[in-house]
């Protein structure tokens, strides 16, 4: 028997497998394929203070080993979440985290505060890295100062576990991670999507209505692993790693690089049961290589 429990700075997960916001809906979409309670937890779609219609169609383009999206945080707002989604999720025996987005500090703070009132949401993931909204979003996550400011403000209004999701579209990811740590984050997750674009050469038009969008999938994994490795060796708070994880081996690569837990994102579209495939694969790997406790893998890369 392998011990897969991890403790992310007080947030207890039965295993390190979470899902990435925006790729797992509200979890229930996957209930036909996945026993949700087997997961370490899942992170629901980006939630904002007010409802958002998101960006116009087309919002998606396929790329080599990846995809671009320009959903633009379509969601029904935090109150709808509290009233309609939360009751369906609150009794699940797993960790349900809410991904909180905003276009100004006040919005982030107020959304976080309202989520904070829900007893069975143990943590939020603060999204300061969405490339698909005009104001806010990624702008906060690409500058240490403004990243620190929004985290500090939310920290005051939110008492539970505060995970902050970082943008990879930066020169120095460590400086952002440190700023966020100093401002009171309990953990960081990385990476969000890379800003990319694609043009249809037949029509000469951009493939996304917004021209640029966020790139995800296996294509980005090597950059994501590098950033996780850099951050994990330079901050004290735990790191949640993601970006292109499809298989258990991918997940283990992030753990070896220093992540304490991981998120499965775009892979859910390829295999709606990707999360349990990854989970089963991690267990198998541990058995095969004589790993008794998942903590042996975390940061376990040999040099």
């Amino acid at each position, binding site marked *: 028997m392998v011990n897969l429990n991890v403790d992310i700075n007080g947030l207890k997960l039965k295993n390190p497998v979470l899902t990435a916001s*925006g*790729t*797992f*809906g509200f979890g229930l*979409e*996957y209930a*036909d*394929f996945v026993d949700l309670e087997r997961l370490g937890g899942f992170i629901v*779609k980006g939630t904002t203070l007010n409802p958002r*219609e*998101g960006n*116009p*169609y*087309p*919002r*998606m*383009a*396929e*790329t*080599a*080993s*990846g*995809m671009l*999206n320009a*959903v633009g945080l*379509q969601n029904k707002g935090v109150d709808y979440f509290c009233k309609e989604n939360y009751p369906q999720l609150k009794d699940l025996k797993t960790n349900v985290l809410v991904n909180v987005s905003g276009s100004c500090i006040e919005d982030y703070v107020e959304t976080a505060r309202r989520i904070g009132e829900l007893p069975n949401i143990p943590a939020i993931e603060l999204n300061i890295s969405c490339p698909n909204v005009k104001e806010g979003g990624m702008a906060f996550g690409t500058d240490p100062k403004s990243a620190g400011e929004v985290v500090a403000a939310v920290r005051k209004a939110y008492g539970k576990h505060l995970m902050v999701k970082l943008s990879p579209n930066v020169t120095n990811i460590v400086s952002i991670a440190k700023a966020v740590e100093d401002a009171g984050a309990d953990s960081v997750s990385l990476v969000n999507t890379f800003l990319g674009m694609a043009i249809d050469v037949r029509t000469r038009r951009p493939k996304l209505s917004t021209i640029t969008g966020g790139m995800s*999938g296996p294509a980005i994994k090597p950059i994501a692993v590098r950033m996780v490795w850099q951050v994990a060796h330079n901050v004290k708070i735990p790191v949640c790693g993601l970006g292109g994880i499809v298989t258990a081996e991918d997940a283990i690569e992030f753990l070896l690089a220093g992540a304490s837990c991981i998120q499965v994102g*775009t892979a*859910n*579209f*390829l*295999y*709606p*049961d990707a999360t349990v495939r990854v989970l089963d694969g991690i267990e198998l790997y541990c058995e095969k290589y004589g790993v008794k406790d998942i903590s042996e893998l975390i940061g376990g890369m040999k040099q």
Partner: protein
Amino acid sequence: MSKKVIRDLRVIGNERIGGSFFMLTLQSEDALPVIMPAQFAEVKINNSVGTFLRRPISIHDVDYDKQTIQLLVKIAGDGTATLAHLREGDLLNVVFPLGNTFALPLSGRVLLVGGGVGVAPLLFTARYMQRFGFRPDILLGYRSKSNILRKEVYEKFGNVFYSTDDGSFGEKGTVMQHSIFNSENFPYTEILACGPEPMMRALAKWALEHKVECEVSLENKMACGIGACLCCVQNTKDGHKCVCTEGPVFNVKQLLW
């Protein structure tokens, strides 16, 4: 809606049926879930380097006894071209059944309208109606006589009318130019349609003008197929709707066309 499944289905037939069309027959080891007309499958294409995401394909026909589904596919790019090379015995990983179904009663005087590969979901729709003792009329539009797909099968389930762009079979012109839409009285209470967007837009306009109930099945680009990613949205009077779960079937009154 019935439970969705992810399954490796075995290819037991892959038939070229003219032009760039082929028909895959896929068998499941376990009993099939309940499948409704216009529902679709998301197919994982493993050995095409250019195909990252699954491909949505309508369920063309279902045989619960043999535990088979059929997909009628047109080669549109790398992914579908790779499917065309599948051989008997190969496995195909499929997520199904996905999407809604027609909301209008399938019991009145129903006209099914299809164009090109849009004829795919109509076969199972007609078969489904037969099971409840109904027989739709079916209007199929093709480029030319040589493009007509599986003529006899459709004719088992309803009276089939044809239009071809070049007049080589049935009436000449588009489906909208067919006499059905251009005679004194229109005998149908509902129209259910699937086909290229320009055809569906023209049909929607006609139906709204003539106050005939009309539902169309759309083909937006999808990433997940199960309502999780919000990529496939169609703008409607009630805002963005997911084509994969709140569609593919929409009443034309809902659309902002």
